[in-house]
């Protein structure tokens, strides 16, 4: 797997295999248009698709994983052969600091596909409101910066 196209290959695989995922975290904020820094990729995976995720990333792409597939850990990481880190979150719902319940089912329903023009390639990200809610889970300074960008982008889109 070539370094240059590694993440694209993974996302293409998710799309092709019907693995229900959402790219969350800073990478999603970046795809909305915010010029921010991120070392890794955060994916929220539907718990029912965990087995298929392991079959694809560990068996097919030979990624190293920090957890055994039989363990019931809700958070773990995969490392690709070229060293990229994918943080995986596998839970049905989460509550943020404002006690808002964010479920994967609802977030998937409201999700959007960001597409590359003239290509079949796309990435599934939460709707902007859900992404803001997700950013309120930890509210670290970098999350607040992300929220500021997302609120600005939302205003621009509405305007």
């Amino acid at each position, binding site marked *: 797997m070539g370094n240059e196209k590694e993440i*694209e290959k993974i996302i293409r695989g998710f799309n092709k295999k019907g693995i229900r995922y959402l790219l969350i975290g800073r990478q999603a904020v970046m795809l909305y248009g*915010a*010029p921010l820094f991120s070392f890794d990729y955060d994916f929220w995976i539907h718990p029912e698709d965990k087995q298929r995720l392991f079959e694809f990333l560990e068996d097919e792409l030979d990624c190293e994983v920090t957890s055994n597939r039989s363990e019931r850990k809700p958070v773990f990481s995969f490392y690709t052969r070229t060293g990229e880190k994918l943080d995986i979150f596998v839970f049905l719902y989460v509550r943020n600091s404002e006690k808002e319940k964010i479920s994967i089912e609802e977030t998937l329903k409201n999700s959007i596909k960001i597409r590359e023009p003239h290509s079949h390639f796309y990435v599934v990200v939460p709707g902007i409101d859900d992404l803001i809610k997700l950013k309120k889970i930890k509210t670290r300074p970098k999350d607040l910066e992300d929220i500021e960008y997302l609120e*600005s*982008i939302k*205003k*621009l889109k509405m305007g």
Partner: protein
Amino acid sequence: MKKLKSMNNNKKENKKRIPLEILENIVWFSQFSLRQKLKIHYKQKQFALKYRGSALQWEMKKKLKK
């Protein structure tokens, strides 16, 4: 009519509240494609932002000279 006017004013207010620096950064970043955004490495981004900063300064200097 009054309602429409106040809605318009609200829209203008909303637009005004976006900090200029953030707006500039968003506009600048929009030149990158989805694939480019996904693959931009941390160091490349640092370089790009640094370069952008100096490019902006250069633009400012040009304007000030005029």
